[in-house]
């Protein structure tokens, strides 16, 4: 999810390629030192790093509210949650590193704007209710995509996903719990929740990526077992799961076309504004520049810290060698 629209590489036609595909078809996990087609390696690096970057940039919109959380309990929960996102980014960078790329290289790609991250994080968090919506909807959508990825063909990625999913199960619940407290609260709080839902619903729907019909580069990734469901499949699942929850909360989803389809045993829903989606991806969201600026600042301001620690480690290594 955090890794939608990853451009897929090409499969080869050699015997090695065929044996590789056969392994994947037999559900044998690919491990770092195994032979793999260059296209598979490159696609995975792009996908895993985009996923990692999304976790890291994803700290920012919610991180905004750690200092303003309205109770001590909420402050602790939110800090723990945003900290988890940093952890997830870390696990994913480590998984990408097994493919022969360093974390610094990946960071450089993010900071220069060359690498993508999920465009959902380019929307602003304007009220406390937004923090609830991110947990409930954005993490809810992310989980929907990450659960199948636990079975993806690349061992380190699949293991990272297992750890992430285990930890993330509390994220969606804490978001729902924030929203629940709001709708059970004052009129102002209820209005705050509805307003936030109005702003986050469509971006959440678009997190699954463009419709399958327009999605050009999924096929090879699906064959390789690194994308397991189509965008539309996951989107439908998300809508079907979320609509009853919104009803339970007494909130209205901002989609006049939303209605239960008895034949399909699923909800029909309207078409998102894809122009807006691509516009945000192109860098024209409200917070694109702020997000990258914040990451660049953290990295640049931290250079002396990293250098200082390395300098000390080198000094002590030299002293230890001299002492021996």
């Amino acid at each position, binding site marked *: 999810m955090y890794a939608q629209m990853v451009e897929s590489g090409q499969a080869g036609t050699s015997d090695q390629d065929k044996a590789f595909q056969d392994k994947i078809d037999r559900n044998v996990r690919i491990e770092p030192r195994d032979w793999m087609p260059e296209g598979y390696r490159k696609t995975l690096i792009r996908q895993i790093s985009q996923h990692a970057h999304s976790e*890291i940039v994803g*700290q*920012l919109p919610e*991180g905004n509210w*750690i*200092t*303003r*959380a*309205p*109770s*001590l*309990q*909420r*402050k*602790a929960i939110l*800090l*723990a949650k*945003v*900290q988890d996102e*940093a*952890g997830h*980014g*870390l696990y994913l*960078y480590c998984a990408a590193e097994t493919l022969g790329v360093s974390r610094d290289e990946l960071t450089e790609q993010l900071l220069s704007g060359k690498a993508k991250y999920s465009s959902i994080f380019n929307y602003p968090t304007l009220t*406390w209710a937004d923090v609830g919506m991110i947990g409930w909807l954005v993490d809810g959508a992310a989980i929907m995509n990450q659960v199948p990825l636990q079975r993806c063909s690349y061992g380190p990625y699949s293991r990272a996903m297992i750890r992430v999913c285990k930890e993330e199960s509390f994220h969606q619940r804490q978001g729902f719990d*924030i929203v629940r*407290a*709001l709708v*059970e*609260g*004052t009129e*102002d*709080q209820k209005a705050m929740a509805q307003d936030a839902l109005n702003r986050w619903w469509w971006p959440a729907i678009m997190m699954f990526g463009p419709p399958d019909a327009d999605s050009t580069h999924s096929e090879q990734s699906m064959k390789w077992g690194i994308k397991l469901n189509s965008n539309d499949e996951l989107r439908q699942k998300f809508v079907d799961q979320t609509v009853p929850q919104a009803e339970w909360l007494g909130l209205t989803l901002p989609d006049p076309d939303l209605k239960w389809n008895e034949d399909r045993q699923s909800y029909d829903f309207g078409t998102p504004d894809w122009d807006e989606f691509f516009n945000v991806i192109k860098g024209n969201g409200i917070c694109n520049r702020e997000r990258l600026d*914040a990451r660049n*600042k*953290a*990295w640049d*301001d*931290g*250079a*002396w*810290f*990293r*250098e*200082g*620690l390395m*300098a*000390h*480690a080198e*000094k002590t290594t030299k002293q230890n060698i001299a002492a021996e």
Partner: protein
Amino acid sequence: MSPFATFCLRMGDNALILGQRTGEWCGHAPVLEEDIAFANMGLDLIGQTQLWYGMVSDELGKSPDDLAFFRGEREFLNTLLVEQPNTDFAHALMRQYLFDAWHLPMLDGLTGSTNADVAALAEKSVKEVRYHIDRSRDLIVRLGDGSPESHDRMQAALDWLWPFTADLLARDAADDTLVAEGMIPAAAPVQQAFDWETAETFARATLTAPDGPRRTGGRTGNHSEHMGYLLAVMQSVPRAHPGAHW
């Protein structure tokens, strides 16, 4: 307010305000590993805040959240040290270390408190703080004795923050009453532990604590200007919606 309530508020306010400053780093630290470690400390501190405020909730007739979000800056009794801003990561680390160097012997002493609730609270917190100082001390030494730039930044942070340690170690009549009751440790052993800890560490870190004026005031509600901004941010949501539950 009773001496006991004053003391508990000072402890809780220290934990909250430092936790607030620590939380500001989430998503902005120099490396991911550090981001995660800092958040762990912040979580411990917020947890400690809830415990200290819980101790005096009945006497003051205010919930822990009311104490955090509905008092003004003159009513907060935290030390000046913890409200100092995150000028850079060196300031954040040094502030944490100086606080830990006092916090550990203080809590260690409180584990022998005649008040069983205080002793139990200290018993739980002291484990957390032992880890905090292990980590902060280690980084002070590494960065003090690291590159020329890391040394200079750590020294600058020490120069800025050291004067506030007077506020950290200060005592008044309320404290004296509690010492006499065996509720809190006397000033001398805490001061000695602090002096020994910091002298040893700064020697290893090739850093020098400055002479000169010492600053006090936070413990009596006389804060720096940073405090008002910190509270304005922290309290904005509950204050905009009085009576709301979150």
